[in-house]
């Protein structure tokens, strides 16, 4: 049995067809080099956003073609003659041999959401260049490597989860630390994502109307699939998407329908709605709400990304911000505090390096991989695609007039909440904008735009500019709410799914001491575990919403650092496994991103905990506020003594969480260091890798099958069809 991809001599004859390949890759390299040069050298004149777009695309292509191939062939030595868990343990459920392109889609839908859309928007306060460089270089050397390597190691262990692998390969203490870290980090991530939705929907009846309608639409789809026409997923998704578009259009008429007042909800009301909704969604059967909404969300995800790419190319907008703003060096930016290093690398997590992906790359996806070589296109390729989403979001934020950008993204305490005070604040930052211009911008999207922090409204505003420019028609308000809608849809799907995953983790953990609790069909356990998870993120959300200094300003750094500490755990595991497998000479592949990630996260954690600058250090902020209170004064933007108490409480809590996360990671890294030393002394150590079993299936290895691959697949399929006599 020969698989087409197990050919050790590689790419066939030496001359002839390779000339074409050389020409194509040289051209890609030249395009990339020109784009990067334009970005690096243009100053003072208008810079087109397309330079960023094509610098990214050509860099991705080269990295995929060469670096990911090097990792697959030389470092991991993927072996297509080795049966994957999907093949060996196929049960049609979680273990399921899946077409590589289909699995690519599933994996991408699972990893990409609102994260890559939000981080780059916030990071745009430092200019377009720092974000662009980090997103592209970060994904190539760190993010995509993490996803691919973790997926490979999990696949070699029958799809074990990250926590399990840390416990078995590094040690029990590290395993427990990883379990706590994963759970806590997930809660923070859910809370911050929910905060983005709350900030986007507050005081926005149109948004609340459209998002509210997604619930009955999803319920309708669920009942349709359960009772009317079981299994017709494409059909019901088409109906759902049509209803969704109607819901967005309908939102424009809330005023006429007389619903505007009752749908104008405050932040606090929305938090309560979200918490109640999150709890109900997590105890309902998944077919009713979760599964159908996932179909909608996935469809919208792919659709919007394609639309954004096409829109960008047609509109070819010019960047409105500088390459690097003063906030990068003085650390006084109003969107988030701190200098370029380390805070750009924290703010942009998803799209460059996202630890959360390690939870998806271990567990679900590896159980469905058909051939070992597929970890390259699914793990590395999937992450490149997410990075592209992040680049698009960065561009969308950078084409907005800077006066509007800062009016939208500075906390309400700073802008004062009216066009006059916001314009005065922004002019004070050194950008020119008049109250009338702010009002005109608000009118164009039929929303208030002052202090709409959280990234989503800014992205929606940028997208409405791009789409209006590209497709015409004066539909800015429609596009704005379209963008808000799909971001909220992604986030709600992530919150529901995350709550459910968190519930399973909690039940599993408590099940170690109380066996019955681990039974996922036992109602008291299911309900109480769901309630605990919802209350945990609901509490953080409540804190964020009530924060006088702006919840995003305060919580987003915590979110970014948490996400990247999770990446540190995943990369630590990957590095340890390189040593245990006796591959020390390639340990730099996960080792370099690990070192970088540790430098960034530990510097950021250190500053957040120990900095004596109240704008950065949580404890410094708490004590500055305490001093003000003791002197009988207000502090910063606080308007009442209660605000001051709130600042003291929130900052102390964030500081403790921040320190705890960093400590957990240090425990894991220390445990890993011990294992690495042992492994180096012994020249490798036994691991829990499952022994090789010969593979019987044949499949192409990359996105596009070669002629030889197609031929061998055809032969194999024919041999499968002949009855075994």
């Amino acid at each position, binding site marked *: 049995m020969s698989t087409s991809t197990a050919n050790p001599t590689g790419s066939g004859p030496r001359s002839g067809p390779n000339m074409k390949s050389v020409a194509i890759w040289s051209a890609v390299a030249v395009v990339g080099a020109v784009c990067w040069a334009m970005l690096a050298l243009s100053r003072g004149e208008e810079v087109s956003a397309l330079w960023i777009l094509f610098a990214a695309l050509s860099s991705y292509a080269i990295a995929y073609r060469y670096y990911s191939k090097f990792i697959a062939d030389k470092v991991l030595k993927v072996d297509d003659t080795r049966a994957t868990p999907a093949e060996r343990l196929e049960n*049609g*459920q*979680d273990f399921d041999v*899946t*077409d590589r*392109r*289909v699995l690519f*889609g*599933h994996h991408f*839908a*699972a*990893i*990409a*959401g*609102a*994260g*890559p859309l939000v981080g780059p928007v916030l990071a745009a306060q430092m200019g377009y260049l720092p974000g662009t460089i980090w997103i592209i270089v970060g994904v190539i050397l760190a993010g995509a490597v993490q996803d691919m390597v973790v997926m490979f190691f999990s696949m070699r262990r029958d799809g074990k989860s990250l926590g399990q692998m840390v416990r078995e390969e590094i040690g029990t203490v590290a395993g427990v630390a990883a379990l706590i870290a994963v759970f806590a980090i*997930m809660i923070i*991530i859910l809370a911050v*994502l929910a905060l983005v939705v709350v900030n986007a929907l507050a005081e926005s009846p149109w948004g609340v109307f459209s998002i509210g309608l997604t619930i009955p639409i999803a319920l309708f789809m669920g009942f349709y*699939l*359960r009772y009317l026409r*079981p*299994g*017709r*997923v*494409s059909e019901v*998704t088409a109906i759902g998407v049509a209803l969704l578009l109607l819901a967005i259009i309908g939102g424009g008429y809330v005023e006429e329908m007389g619903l505007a007042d009752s749908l104008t909800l405050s932040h606090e009301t929305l938090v309560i709605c979200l918490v109640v909704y999150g709890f109900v969604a997590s105890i309902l*059967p*998944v*077919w009713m709400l*979760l*599964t159908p909404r*996932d*179909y909608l969300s996935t469809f919208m995800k792919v659709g919007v990304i394609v639309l954004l790419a096409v829109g960008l190319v047609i509109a070819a907008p010019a960047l409105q911000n500088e390459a690097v703003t003063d906030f990068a060096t003085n650390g006084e930016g109003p969107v988030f505090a701190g200098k370029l290093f380390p805070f750009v690398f924290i703010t942009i997590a*998803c799209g460059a390096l*996202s630890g*959360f*992906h390690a*939870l*998806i790359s271990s*567990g*679900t996806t590896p159980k469905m991989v058909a051939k070992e070589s597929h970890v390259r296109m699914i793990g590395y390729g999937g992450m490149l695609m997410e990075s592209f989403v992040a680049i698009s979001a960065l561009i969308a934020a950078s084409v907005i007039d800077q006066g509007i950008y800062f009016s939208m993204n500075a906390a309400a305490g700073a802008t004062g909440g009216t066009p006059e005070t916001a314009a005065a604040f922004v002019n004070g930052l050194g950008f020119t904008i008049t109250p009338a211009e702010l009002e005109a911008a608000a009118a164009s999207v039929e929303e208030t735009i002052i202090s709409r922090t959280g990234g989503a409204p800014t992205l929606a505003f940028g997208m409405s500019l791009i789409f209006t420019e590209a497709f015409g028609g004066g539909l800015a308000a429609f596009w704005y709410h379209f963008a808000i809608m799909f971001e909220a849809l*992604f986030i709600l*799907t*992530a919150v*529901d*799914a*995350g709550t*459910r*995953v968190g519930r*399973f983790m909690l039940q599993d953990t408590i099940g170690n001491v109380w066996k019955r609790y681990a039974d*996922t*069909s036992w109602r008291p356990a299911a309900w109480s575990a769901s309630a605990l998870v919802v209350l945990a993120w609901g509490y953080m959300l409540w804190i964020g919403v009530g924060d006088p200094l702006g919840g995003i300003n305060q919580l987003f750094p915590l979110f970014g650092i948490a*996400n990247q500490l999770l990446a540190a755990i995943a990369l630590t595991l990957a590095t340890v496994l390189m040593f245990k497998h006796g591959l020390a000479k390639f340990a730099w592949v996960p080792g370099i991103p690990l070192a970088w990630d540790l430098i960034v996260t530990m510097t950021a954690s250190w500053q957040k905990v120990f900095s004596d600058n109240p704008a950065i250090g949580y404890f410094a902020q708490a004590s500055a506020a305490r001093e003000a209170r003791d002197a009988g004064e207000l502090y910063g933007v606080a308007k009442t003594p209660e605000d001051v108490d709130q600042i003291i409480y929130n900052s102390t809590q964030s500081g403790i969480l921040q320190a705890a996360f960093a400590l957990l990671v240090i425990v894991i890294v220390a445990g890993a260091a011990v294992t690495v030393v042992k492994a180096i002394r012994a020249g490798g150590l036994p691991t829990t890798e499952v022994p090789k079993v010969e593979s019987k299936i044949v499949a192409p290895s990359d996105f596009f099958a070669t002629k030889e691959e197609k031929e061998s697949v055809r032969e194999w399929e024919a041999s499968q069809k002949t009855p075994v006599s």
Partner: protein
Amino acid sequence: MSILTERVSGAWRLLRQATGEAKWDEYVARCEREGVEPMTRRAFERHRADEKEHNQQARCC
């Protein structure tokens, strides 16, 4: 022309696999091969929904 129809039907097949609808096609084909009477589509889909109940995949940010 035949290449075009082949492409289109290939894409359609991939889409059905992506939505999970192909599971039913495969099941029916397998029953036919083994000479077994397949269960109804309703029962089959219900069975698949029950599996999903305890097999939640995380959705990232």
